[in-house]
């Protein structure tokens, strides 16, 4: 008995002695704070049960473009969970921290959840905003972040532009005029989605916020469903925020295995449930069905369909001298 107890004690001691504390840095875009707060706790519990190791995940949040630039400039991200593939492509091309084919490494083009752009308006919808046409009317003040720094802002811009293309038979000139009218209604540009939510919901600026769907739901939760309401336009864009391991950084930290597992867990039932609860549209059909009431059905167009992919969209609209620079004068 004594020998057995000794062996047990020794093995538990060795287990404790062998248990590691692993630190991961997840550099993410602006509105995912609540999602990853919940997700990180779940993953840490899962990893502890699986391996006995403690995982401490730090988060960094900001406009997707800014975050990508920070990683390029040396921010030691083990994983990135950004708003659009283009930003992770930039990390790959400019800093060579992960391979160019990173998006093929995880299912669904490395996007475990999707989202879209909706309208958050004041309770009662005093300006009667129902669709994109209402957003561009004179006298309607629109809050949206800066597409130069925010991934959500780029999705919102492309959603409006896509609507105009669909409405005006893919007439670029009319679509440009449409987007010009929209940004004429924008009094202020925050650098990220969370900043725009603060501008609209806390500072009381504007009549409508073009928001990530999850951000709009969070605003109702935080500021009160008696103050705001969500209007889902009939057409919007399918936003696919991707995730990736930053290979060279994870390898340098000795974190590659954990980093991979961290992202793979997003696709698990647990990860998909957490995403859905935080108003991200899960990829898992069963869980999507379970949370269908959270999400309004609408027509979703993709960047590939309407704009020929992110590289083309970025070059045409958001690069220096692109359409956005042409139509927007601060």
């Amino acid at each position, binding site marked *: 008995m004594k020998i057995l107890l000794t062996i047990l004690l020794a093995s538990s001691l060795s287990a404790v002695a062998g248990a590691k504390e692993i630190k991961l840095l997840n550099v993410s875009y602006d509105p995912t704070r609540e999602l990853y707060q919940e997700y990180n706790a779940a993953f840490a519990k899962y990893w502890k049960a699986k391996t006995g190791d403690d995982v401490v995940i730090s988060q960094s949040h900001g406009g997707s473009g800014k975050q990508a630039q920070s990683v390029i400039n040396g921010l030691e991200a083990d994983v990135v969970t950004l708003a659009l593939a283009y930003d992770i492509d930039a990390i790959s091309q400019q800093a060579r921290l992960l391979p160019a084919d990173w998006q093929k490494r995880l299912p669904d083009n490395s996007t475990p959840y999707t989202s879209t752009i909706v309208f958050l308006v004041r309770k009662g919808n005093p300006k009667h905003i129902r669709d994109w046409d209402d957003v561009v009317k004179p006298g309607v*003040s629109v809050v949206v972040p800066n597409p130069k720094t925010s991934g959500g802002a780029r999705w919102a811009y492309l959603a409006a532009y896509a609507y105009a293309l669909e409405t005006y038979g893919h007439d670029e000139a009319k679509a440009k005029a449409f987007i010009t009218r929209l940004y004429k209604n924008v*009094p*202020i540009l*925050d*650098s990220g989605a969370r900043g725009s939510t603060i501008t609209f919901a806390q*500072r*009381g*600026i*504007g009549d409508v916020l073009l928001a990530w769907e999850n951000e709009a739901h969070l605003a109702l939760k935080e500021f009160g469903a008696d103050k705001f309401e969500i209007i889902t336009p009939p057409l919007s864009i399918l936003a696919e925020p991707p995730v990736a391991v930053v290979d060279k950084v994870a390898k340098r930290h000795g974190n590659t295995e954990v980093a991979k597992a961290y992202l793979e867990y997003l696709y698990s039932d647990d990860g998909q449930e957490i995403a859905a609860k935080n108003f991200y549209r899960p990829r898992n059909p069963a869980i999507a069905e379970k949370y269908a009431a959270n999400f309004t059905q609408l027509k979703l167009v993709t960047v590939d369909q309407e704009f020929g992919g992110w590289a083309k969209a970025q070059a045409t609209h958001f690069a220096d001298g692109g359409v956005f620079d042409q139509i927007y004068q601060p």
Partner: protein
Amino acid sequence: MKLNQLILTAIVGAQFALPLFAADSEATNSTGAAQSESPALTAGGTAASAAETEEIEDLKREIQALDQKVQNLEKQHQSQQQAIIATNQEQIQELDQKVRVLSRQHELDQETAEAAAKLQPRFKLDSSGFLFTSADTNFSIGLHGLVQLDSRTYLGNNNVANSGFLLRRARPIIVGTVFHDFDYNLTPDFGGGTVQIVDAYINYHYDPQLQLEAGKFKPPVGLEALQSDANLYLNERSLVTDLVPNRDVGLELHGDLFGGAISYAAAIMDGAPDYSSTTVNTNLDSDLAYYGRIFVQPWITSDVDLLRGLGFGVGGSYEDASGVNGLTAGYTTDGQQRFFTYTPAAGTTIANGQHWRLSPQSYYYYGPLGLMGEYAISDQDVRNGAATANLQNTAWEVQGGWVLTGEDASYNGVTPRHPFKPLSGGWGAWQVVGRYEQLNVDSAAFPTFASSAASASAARAWSAGLNWYLNRNIRFDASYSHTTFSGYTGPSPAVPAKGEDVFFTRIQLAF
């Protein structure tokens, strides 16, 4: 409505009052006869009544029309007021939104400015020099300096050196850091009429407990030798420094353990003779030297004030030296006059193998009191022709100082509490200092390896001085040094046989 009612009442009242007045006047108009109705008057009265009634009706209609007009005017006024109020409210809302937008824009601009400020490099200029640091503190460059203008007045006759002024040191000291963990130091010296690189090294300090230094720097042996030139008690270092190397070129592993309680250093370098010149930047023979030092300050982090400033240790070196270059050029006095060289009457003395040094050392600082003492052995194999010997030269010194104005003494200098500003009552810090020192040359050096005609076998000196620290950067020193010699017999002295007496002054700028 009230106005309308008033008008109506006045008109109606007047209409009823007028006939009464007419009836009264008709009654009083008769010449005295009682008024009586005549048939002709009654018929006329009925006609008048009808006319009056019609008039009243007309007036009533007029009043109603006026009433209607007043109502319309009032409605119009109300609508206008409401329109004005609505317009004002709209304008207020617009202005409110503009103010909110401006306020939010200001917030965002501040956030952007704060973020940008974090990326801006920082610049600092103060008594410790100039420092330019990147926002992330990974890179820096700083400029310090040391300028010492000395005067030496040799008393007595037969001094080799001349009295006068000299620029003892003039050093711009360039220091900095690259990539957070790599420090560098580049120190040229323009003093003494020559230009030379005094220090040039890189130090990798990933951890304070383990650092790697590479380049030209002071080897870890003598305590006073390692002390900064700006913080010496007296103009020149003691005779002990004659036996230890000045600068050398190589690599050193060093660090501070237990919060600085233990400092260690181990170096492998080219090798340097006793009191080597700082102009040497290369190995003068093919052998390397090994240096080591450990210094302990056991109470450095304790609450025991009395013991916190106590430190002791030992430094040493070992090398295989050969040839003339492996031997010291000679030992000098405080006045920098050479009193010993390996110059025999015949032949040439050269280094011939093993050369080791050992130097136990200690200091103690407590409040204004500062004490330092060290002992050095330089043991070297020499040869002159067929003759060989192992010579062991020794030296020791004790020195002390007391800051009269009460500031703390330290290995790193004195900081005046009240910098010199006489009109404000600031007179800087004043310190008295003294030293006793001795150097003994191995008697076996004479006469085969050194000549008593040109060299003394021992020197003893005492010094006393007064230092005035005007502020952290400027210092005035004055001191007197008296050195006597032993074993010197020759007629042609390298130094005055009776000894050397020198009066020193120094003006120092250090930052």
